[in-house]
């Protein structure tokens, strides 16, 4: 892929030339496939803008606009922003006065917990991956396999000892506890990903730098690390997506002050006894989607170029 050097090229408007480039014909085909693939998400986002009665309409309402009469009136709903307001303020009992739902706090918790644990796992995991790649220990593969097994058991099996341990130590319901647990949760994937990136780098440059008198620390920071920045981005995005949406650990380990959005979402949807509140759930999910969506979008270039660098054994 060539470097983007103008706005137009950044937007993808560029002539198809040579091998590995396709024109607008490909865009059309992929656009149709992508939109079909995206439809279930689009429906959730639209539901967030629906009035309550439109969400329960039969047949289901599908679009906020009739697209100049293209879509029959029975499938069209009038968009509203009400649902987003009721994410943060709504009456908890039928007919009661609106109360704060605490969702601002839950969003804050999700951001703090997910970002710090993914970053922590990235730092620790990258160091370990470099160690596994460059300074193999006795039984290196065994260590790597044991690390992989930590991801193999369902959360429910690990959780009971962890709950007991946290209770004894006084970590239950604290940020520290859940951040540490998520860090461990992310480590296996981080190490396996980053190791495959480091394995791909040419050792010649590093050896040359060593001969010229660079310390091992300098080789890591100045030579190895800059080459895998893209890999770091990819691992960060995957880790963020998994941690951001993690449900079972959060359900059983977070206290009232550290509750994350997926747990609160589940409670908000199933409480009240009126059946599932589709519009509220859709509004929460739409808001909840924005941060990961933006992060992924801005790291996307790295994501592609990134994984490119690593993982492929040659």
């Amino acid at each position, binding site marked *: *892929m060539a470097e983007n050097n103008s706005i137009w090229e950044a*937007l*993808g*408007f560029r002539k198809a030339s040579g*091998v590995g*480039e*396709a024109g*607008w014909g*490909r*865009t059309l*085909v*992929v656009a149709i*496939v*992508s939109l079909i*693939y*995206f439809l*279930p998400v689009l429906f959730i986002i639209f*539901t967030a803008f629906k009035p309550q009665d439109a969400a*329960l309409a*039969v047949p*289901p309402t599908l679009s906020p606009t009739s697209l100049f009469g293209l879509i029959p009136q029975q499938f069209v709903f009038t968009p509203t922003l009400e649902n987003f307001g009721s994410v943060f303020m709504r009456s908890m009992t039928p007919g009661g006065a609106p109360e704060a739902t605490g969702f601002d706090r839950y969003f804050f918790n999700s951001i703090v917990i997910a970002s710090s644990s993914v970053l922590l796992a990235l730092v620790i995991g990258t160091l370990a991956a470099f*160690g*596994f790649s*460059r300074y193999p*220990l006795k039984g290196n593969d065994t*260590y790597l396999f044991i*690390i992989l*097994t*930590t991801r193999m*058991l*369902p959360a*429910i*099996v*690990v959780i*009971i000892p*962890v709950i007991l*341990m946290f209770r*004894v130590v006084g970590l239950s319901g604290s940020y520290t506890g859940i951040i540490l647990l998520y860090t*461990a949760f992310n480590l296996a*994937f981080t190490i*396996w990903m980053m190791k495959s990136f480091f394995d791909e780098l040419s050792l010649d440059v590093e050896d040359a730098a060593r001969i010229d008198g660079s310390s*091992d620390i300098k080789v890591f920071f100045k030579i190895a690390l800059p080459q895998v920045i893209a890999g770091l981005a990819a691992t960060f995005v*995957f880790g963020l997506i998994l941690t951001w949406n993690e*449900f079972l650990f959060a359900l059983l380990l977070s206290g009232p002050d550290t509750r994350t959005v*997926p747990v609160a*979402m589940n409670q908000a*949807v199933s409480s009240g006894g009126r059946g599932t509140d589709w519009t509220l*759930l*859709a509004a929460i*999910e739409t808001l909840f989607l924005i941060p*990961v969506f933006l992060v*992924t979008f801005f790291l*996307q270039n790295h994501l592609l*170029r990134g*994984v*490119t*660098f690593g*993982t*492929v*054994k040659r």
Partner: protein
Amino acid sequence: MRLSPDNWKLAILVGLVVSVLAAIALPPHVSFWIVGAMAALVAAAFVVNAYRRKYYGGLLVAPAIAVLFVMNIFPLLWSLGLSFFAYQSNQQSIRFIGLANYTKVLTNDIMAPANWGALVNTAMFVVLTVTAQMIVGFLLAMLFAKQFPLRKYLLILVLTPMMLSVVASGVFFSYYYDPTFGILSYVINAITGGQFILMDSKAGAVTGIVFADAWMWSPFVMLLVLAGLVSVPKYLYEAAAIDRVSKWRQFWTITFPYIRGLMMLALLFRTIEAFKLADLVILLTKGGNDTMTISYHLIRIANEQNKTSEGAAISYLMLFMVIVLTNLYLYIANRRSQGD
């Protein structure tokens, strides 16, 4: 013994003595931190020692191993131990019973059929979801492999499903499949004129779950495969074009070697995740229509029925199977890559 920051033997000795004294004399929530501090002391001694001996491998790996040990391996060993005891999390008593839990979950007239049923279902879900994800992910990756206008804006649309919270996607798929409100039943009813309920049969329920799961996680496979596809040097294709190599042969001799490793990684992680499939089943069928998976079964046994030690026994049998399977994968992957 000399007093020096890299004397790890002395550090272990001091650490052990202080820890034991603290554990005996002080309440657990205080003594834990003292034991922790002693562990840090020992660790610091090891670090200094390793640094002076230029033992960088151990040094770099140590923090990760420490976190994993405290948060994963220690709890795993704990539940392994628990599987040899009779223990229920809502009772105080605990009694060593050896392998009785294992024989019970494998042979008991009431428990065994449910366990085996859940296991067979899990195997079915693993095969179906992972196959679907690999195929869909691969095809999507092929679509995005070349550079074309607006590519990054379309790519993010395909990536969005895996960013959704399982709660939301599960609840909304149950809405799409709903016989009254759902879009699926509406469309099929309009065509056939009958009353269509997807989740009414086992085949329908399995299809529904597999479809939702494959939709959510195919983008993960796509991204890894795509990374391999864009890494193929273009001059290889140009050379192949000059030599008039057929597209089919180009794929197998040029493209495939570049994506094989990544497909293996995707296959490995998706298989491990598919073995743990529970949340979608809970949200879509609650295990009805014979769609119970081993992971959901475990949640019921360990959390709702408080049969902690039996749950641990089941999960270790499950871990054994996953380990055998992943080792098989890694064996094949290694043999292939060495075969070149």
